[in-house]
């Protein structure tokens, strides 16, 4: 007989779970997390939560291992447990039934300071068995500029630090703490309601998980958890082992840190595949910098890596939605990211503007993996994001208005498919705010929001995606701040595809006082009538453009993705301009001549 095994970190026996119960519990785990996310984003107040779904929810065991996760934003993939680990550095041994803990400290597991997590411990028959936890981006958390702190020099200046504080202790609410938190933001009423919604969602998770435990018993539930970890691990290992062993390297860069505008920040990614195991080594990336673009390791770097691995090796297009994002996904991976690196900064580094670092990292990983699994990747993606915060102070109402806007990018071309246009890229997956909502509520006017047409899509057998252009005017005086990137970086073409186009950011475009903006302005004053225009990057092409189906080139011209003069020059396609049809024989001849 084999020896009795126990669930890690507990005295709960590990028992066999029949395949049917395993399926039922797998479904239950998923439902619990999805319901938590749904409650939050449907009742929350700030657009960054409800429209962008910039949130993550899940249940963790007492070892902080994530049993399940809501699928709202990939940015939060696998980040929930790290927050709890951070909380325990202060509250270990001091967790009680009825506690509600608030936490946002990026040097103790948080993703970045604006992403505030609520954690409620779960007790069953008096024993602590796990945590219900949910985090979301609050629109302002006492940042140095309204909603952004790109150029903050340290973690204290960029936000209010909430390090493992109990909003409720043993069921009793700490009103003074609550007040202190709200007094230190520009959006107190919105934050109050959002935190309330976070608590409601976490309470729901606790209640639902306890129902599951009640029904199946602790040993079966936690044994099923272990089996699901092992399942995810097994299925990922199988996919990794199909890729050829080797060392794959790519490097890209970030524009700058927002203050020192002359130094590009290197993003270097070495991936080593050995059998069913993978090492991700970021050692050669830039050291940490004295602004807020550093990327916390557990809260942001790891989720970015998890997202790419999940997307490339277990693509939902092929695997459906059924491989759960859980602890098992990290087991075949070794992370090498030394302290002091841009992707693992030491205290007191500021980190709140880390998003572009994570997305550039994701794009760089894709380019490295292109050498190993060329059929699973896209050519260079926008790999950035322009998060623009519009703000002002309404004298008549004695209140700030703060509106954070995620400006999407696009994907590079893909094997068998063109790049996705005007869509959130890689680690980002938010929902935009309708113009008919933002203009109604804020003193702004959107003059233009459409696909860029100053450049054609990057040619390739599969063309690159296109970014957006958005132009917004202020109707009263205010400020903009922005976390952006990709003004210097150009998305790369892959396997013969051509490069994409970089981003641009312009104040008062087309006016006499037009001004090119850097990608990370902190607080730019905007007087009434001033406008700000963002153009986001266009992705690279995949494969040789001479291989593109000639009919598709014609379609591209009709729809404005390609320009007429490109047909022969870039694609080797001859088009009869009067009939607007492809001249097939002339095309074949031209392409043959080009290739020889």
């Amino acid at each position, binding site marked *: 007989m084999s020896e009795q095994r126990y669930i890690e970190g507990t005295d709960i026996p590990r028992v066999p779970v029949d395949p*049917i119960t395993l399926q039922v519990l797998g479904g239950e785990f998923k439902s619990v997390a999805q319901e938590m996310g749904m409650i939050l984003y449907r009742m929350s107040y700030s657009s960054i939560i409800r429209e962008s779904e910039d949130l993550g929810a899940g249940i963790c065991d007492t070892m902080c291992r994530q049993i399940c996760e809501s699928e709202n934003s*990939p940015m939060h*993939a696998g980040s929930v447990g790290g927050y709890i680990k951070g909380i325990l550095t202060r509250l270990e041994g001091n967790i009680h039934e009825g506690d509600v803990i608030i936490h946002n400290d990026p040097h103790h597991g948080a993703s970045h300071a604006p992403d505030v997590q609520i954690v409620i411990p779960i007790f069953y028959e008096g024993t602590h068995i796990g945590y219900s936890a949910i985090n979301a981006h609050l629109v302002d958390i006492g940042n140095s500029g309204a909603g952004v702190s790109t150029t903050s020099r340290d973690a204290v200046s960029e936000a209010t630090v909430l390090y493992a504080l109990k909003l409720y202790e043993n069921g009793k609410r700490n009103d003074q703490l609550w007040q202190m938190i709200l007094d230190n933001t520009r959006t107190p009423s919105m934050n109050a*309601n959002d935190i309330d919604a976070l608590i409601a969602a976490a309470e729901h998770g606790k209640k639902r998980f306890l129902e599951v435990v009640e029904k199946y018993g602790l040993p079966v539930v936690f044994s099923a958890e272990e089996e699901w970890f092992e399942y995810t691990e*097994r299925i990922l290992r199988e996919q990794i082992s199909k890729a050829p062993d080797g060392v794959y390297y790519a490097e890209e860069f970030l524009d700058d840190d927002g203050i020192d505008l002359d130094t590009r920040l290197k993003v270097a990614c070495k991936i080593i595949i050995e059998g069913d195991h993978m090492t991700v080594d970021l050692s050669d990336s830039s050291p940490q910098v004295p602004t807020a673009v550093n990327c916390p390791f557990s809260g942001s770097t790891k989720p970015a890596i998890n997202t790419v691995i999940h997307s490339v090796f277990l693509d939902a297009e092929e695997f459906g939605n059924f491989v759960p994002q859980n602890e098992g996904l990290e087991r075949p991976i070794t992370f090498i990211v030394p302290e002091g690196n841009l992707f693992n900064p030491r205290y007191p580094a500021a980190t709140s503007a880390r998003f572009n670092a994570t997305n550039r990292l994701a794009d760089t990983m894709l380019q490295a993996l292109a050498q190993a699994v060329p059929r*699973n990747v896209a050519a260079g993606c926008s790999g950035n994001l322009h998060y623009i915060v519009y703000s002002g102070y309404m004298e008549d109402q004695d209140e700030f208005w703060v509106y954070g806007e995620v400006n999407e990018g696009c994907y590079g071309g893909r094997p068998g498919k063109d790049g996705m246009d005007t869509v*959130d890229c890689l680690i980002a997956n938010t929902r935009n705010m309708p*113009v008919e909502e933002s203009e109604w509520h804020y003193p702004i006017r959107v003059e233009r929001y459409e696909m860029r047409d100053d450049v054609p899509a990057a040619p390739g057998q599969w063309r690159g995606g296109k970014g957006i252009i958005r132009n917004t005017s202020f109707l009263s005086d205010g400020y903009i701040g922005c976390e952006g990137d990709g003004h210097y970086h150009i998305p790369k073409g892959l396997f013969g595809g051509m490069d994409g186009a970089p981003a641009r950011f312009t104040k008062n475009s087309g006016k006499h006082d037009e001004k090119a903006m850097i990608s990370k302005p902190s607080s730019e004053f905007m007087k009434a009538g001033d406008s700000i225009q963002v153009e986001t990057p266009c992705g690279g092409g995949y494969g040789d453009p001479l291989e593109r189906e000639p009919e598709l080139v014609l379609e591209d011209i009709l729809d404005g*993705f390609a320009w007429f003069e490109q047909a022969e020059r870039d694609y080797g396609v001859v088009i009869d301009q009067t009939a607007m049809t492809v001249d097939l024989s002339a095309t074949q001849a031209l392409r043959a001549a080009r290739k020889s």
Partner: protein
Amino acid sequence: MKRIGIDVGGTFTDFIYVDEDQTEVYKTSTTPHDPSVGIMDGIHAICEKTGTKPEEIDEIFHGTTIATNMVLERKGSEVGMITTEGFRDVLQTARHKRPYNFSIMQDLPWQTHPVCKRRNRYGVTERVVPPSGAVYKPLDEEQVRKAVHKMKRDGITAIAVCFMFSFLNPAHERRVKELILEEIPDAYISLRSDIAPRFREYESFTTTCLNSYVGPKTAAYIENLINTLKASGFVNANLHLMQSGGGVATGEAAAEQPVNLLMSGPAGGVLGACYTARLTEVNDIITLDIGGTSADIAVLPNLRPGMKHLLDTQVGGFSAMVPMIDIMTIGAGGGSLAYIDEGGFFRVGPESAGAVPGPACYDRGGKVPTVTDANILLGRLGTELLGGRMTIRPELAVQAIEETLAPALNMPMLDCAQGIIDIMNSNMVRAIEKESIRRGRDARQFALFACGGAGALHACAVARMLGMKQVMIPLNPGALCAVGLCTTDLLYDFSKTSMMLSTKVDNERLQADFEELEAKAHQRLIEDGVPESDIRLKRIIECRYEGQGYELRAELDGGNVTPESVAGMLERFHMAHKDFFGRFYGETPVEFATLRVEGVGVMPQLETNRIEVGTQDASGALTGHRGVYFKDHGEKLKLFETSVYDRAKLKAGNVVSGPAIINQMDTTIVVEPECIAGVNEYGVILIDIDCTERNG
């Protein structure tokens, strides 16, 4: 009153005829190339069967998937669009969110199959702005003329006009319509301010474009059907079409706004369920409609269908901003495949064997076991289906399981079969729980209403897992949609975005806005010939707490808008929020976003016919016995000697104790052990779960 309901489905077209003393159902095969062929065949057949002359028919109610299929199969018209300059690619970007988080290779349906191609989208200078709809840039008519001229050259006649904020001031859109008609007199034009005068440009533009996308072909279909009916002698029958919001529209109204027909298919079933439940004492039901590939679930407290949330009203990957009954569809049906996945786990669905190759036991080449195969092996399904028109081969089901699942799971064949059923049922249980929790309801307080071909096979087990006490099965579970069609009222929905805060209510503006919407609804109903006494108008305000993103509906009393009536509406809103989210904020200002008027033209009640009365003794309907496997007290599988009954012979008052099987042409009812079924005076079967003695 003599009426006929016609529901065109993917495989079959169902008919029901109802008058004062007769109800008759009929089924034909759907004729996909031209559904009216199957319709005319069936309608003549059912008239013949009931001895009715065509000219005697008063009403024809029709549910059609023609518009839905056009969207799903991407076979609508080539659409041209005129929109505000600077917003040409709203359709391309959608809400800039990908369907999957973790996928490089996914498709964005709104980009791979745009409802209007980019080459046909024209931006023109114009703009109106909030909050009043003031003109910020006047309409450039020259640009419009040029765009229309180009469309004419390209042969485009289906056109959508979508301007920003046009719900505040439709003047520019209306002028564009005049300009189009000057150049293209036969154009099919959809104005955003008519079709979806609500804020959120992506959803509203898409809805308007979808209307033009399905418009010309749907209008032609309806016109052709009306003409064919008239030519075939149905000269006195009014044709009404089912809409996704749960009411019917006249043929003329449906042809103008065919976008309202999208996803109307399952709505008939829900209405049929409500109608059936009214024939019993049960007030709260959850419907479970299981077909071959999917299952539809709807939660109906007080027998009132809910409406879908804005984020969920999608068709084929496009957002359609039209009222839709809140029905959830999951990929679980009789054809769902059971298999071992790449990680070694046992799965059932969502992939389905479909009609071809079908379940293994159908002997059409299927090698992978399905839910149907499991039901056959456990004896729950008989070996003759569709009243003997189809014979099946259980040995092929055995073979499928023994070759795939049994060795991998190291379980006996029958336990594998039961495992398939358990996983299938648990998928449905979770979906029902999620649906009821989402709406703040406790499933245990509801009866489970089973319909579709396979609903009654699983209902007892599903109800038991959920802790529900009762299962209800209508007289004709397969023809329920057709029944539902005959029970609906005329329903038109008019809405308008008009934002206002509860702290600054302008009663006069509200009054004026509602009167304008009511006048539209009233006029529409009068045009349809509804007498004044049968017209009902309902006011709804879609509100949210200030700062929130999504609205909930709250009813406002009719008559003059007063502080009291607004307070009553706000109270209903707070309660709706509490229902949905478990809490409400009495002190927070409430924002009114969209005003809505539902205009109802009340139709005469459907006559209901009683069945023959008998005693408790159901032996008159007994046709034999067979061995069926059930779990003994929820534990091990055990073979039970099980009575088999013919539903057609059951009489009112009959009682059937489980385990039992009740067969009828379009379904098989499983009465599990410790369950007791009773038949009521209208033929509805009610099964009490976990019960050894029948109450009453």
